[in-house]
């Protein structure tokens, strides 16, 4: 269960980015969508603790986590796959997957994780996660890291971005499988119809406010109508 209770976030330069947002859900597959710049990644960063709300509180399973640090939230079981993955000079893909899973992985174990995201594993495990990896490769490694953590809450920020069609099909299956076979909550920030279709619940954020929030199968159709009201309501 995740709850935002009247959460606002104002950036350092005084922009109101999230405005009095409240939602609460216990569904295990939730998709957050909305126009570019509406505040979706900001919500994800608030969940992970990378930024703190200017006002309001955040709860998971009725525990107030608002004052917990990034590390403490990670240890509480929150994982966040960045929209733009971070590059590291010196750390290998295997190092990162090992850090993510909290134990030193063997090459075979790292390979298994990478094959889930469609990377031809052995070519990658020993490589540095630096500028030499392509955007799509890095993105898939980021997703594999979240899967390696296998925590109770996993937030994926536009997992489809930069990923080729074949890997995307693969990824959809992986998300389905995660949904069916684990007890964790999956939150995906996405613009992708096929991901929206999987959602138990959809939350639409536009211009820093929630403009729609409801059952996935119902909202899925409504938000696709041209000029959808939910996209504009926040303006």
């Amino acid at each position, binding site marked *: 269960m995740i709850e935002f209770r009247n959460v606002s976030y104002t950036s350092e330069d005084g922009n109101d980015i999230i405005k009095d947002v409240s939602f609460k859900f216990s569904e295990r597959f939730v998709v957050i969508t909305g126009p570019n710049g509406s505040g979706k990644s900001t919500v994800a960063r608030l969940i992970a603790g990378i930024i703190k709300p200017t006002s309001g509180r955040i709860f998971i399973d009725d525990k107030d986590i608002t004052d917990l*640090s990034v*590390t403490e939230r990670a240890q509480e079981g929150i*994982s966040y796959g960045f929209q733009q993955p*971070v590059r590291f*000079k*010196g*750390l290998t893909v295997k*190092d990162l997957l090992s850090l*993510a899973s909290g134990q030193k992985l063997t090459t075979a174990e790292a390979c298994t994780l990478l094959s889930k995201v469609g990377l031809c594993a052995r070519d990658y495990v020993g490589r540095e996660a630096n500028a030499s990896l392509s955007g799509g490769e890095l993105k898939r490694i980021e997703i594999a*890291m979240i899967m390696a953590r296998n925590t109770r809450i996993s937030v994926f920020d536009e997992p489809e971005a930069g990923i080729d069609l074949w890997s995307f099909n693969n990824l959809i299956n992986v998300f389905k499988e995660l949904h069916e076979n684990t007890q964790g909550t999956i939150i995906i920030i996405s613009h992708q119809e096929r991901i929206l279709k999987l959602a138990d619940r959809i939350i639409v954020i536009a211009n820093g406010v929630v403009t729609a929030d409801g059952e996935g199968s119902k909202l899925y159709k409504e938000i696709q109508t041209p000029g959808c009201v939910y996209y504009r309501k926040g303006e």
Partner: protein
Amino acid sequence: MPFKGLDAEQIDLLKAITGRTEFDEGSAYNLRLNGQGVARSVTENINIVPKTDAPGIDIYIKAGTKNETVHIPVLLSQSGLKETVFNDFHIGDDAVVTIVAGCGINNHGHGDSEHSGIHSFYIGKNAKVKYVEKHYGVGNAGKKVMNPTTYCELGEGSYMEMDTVQISGVDDTSRKTTAVVGRDAKIVVKEKILTDGDQKARTEFSVDLNGENSGAHLVSRSVAKENSSQLFVSDIRGNAPSNGHSECDAIVMDNGRVVAEPRLSANNIDAALIHEAAIGKIAGEQIIKLMTLGLTEKEAEEQIINGFLK
């Protein structure tokens, strides 16, 4: 064979710089302890001869030697000892050899200990040399000073890779590496340095690319913590159609300071020379990413630094 007569601390030093406490039977090595050669072994292809006119050794690698390794560690555990040692490597044509040098200083006394190793490499045609050097110091009273000077002459078609590592405990170091590179030859230098406390490190590379199609690739990765400071100077002169590349990548932490002074001279129209330098603190997003995996800020920093210097 384990060395007789080394005490536990000396064995630890040896382990820190070579990763081992003994050498393979029948391999070539020379161990220098507190200013004296104390153990030596030669092979059919590798001869080690003490110099008579100066401290140090001449190492002769026969032409055509294949895949042998020579270890020449230096240990200083007597406080206040200062020495300058000359080691000359004569590497025959077509030889393929790995040379593992290194200096460990354990200074518990109050005098300053100092080792200046002057190493010269004369590399024959088409030979391949890997030279590994590790510097390490322990003890906190007297200073531990190391000043390695390396001179390399690369013959036609030869290749030299030099890996130097100084991770801990050296108070003051000034490293000078000079190379003269012949036709179709290439030198690759990989340097890793971590300084902390009030340590100072200075590295200078000076490379003359004299032969047609010669090359140099210098890569320095360094971390300056606390109040330490580092200076990186590189000077690559392309005197012939050649390729030169130097790269200085440094992380500063606390009050650490790093200065990079790259210099490239193209003295030939077909010399292609590149320098890259990046100095700064650890990227905040790297720390945050690792914290989202459950690491503390300090653990995240350590992982990033360890990876960077690995």
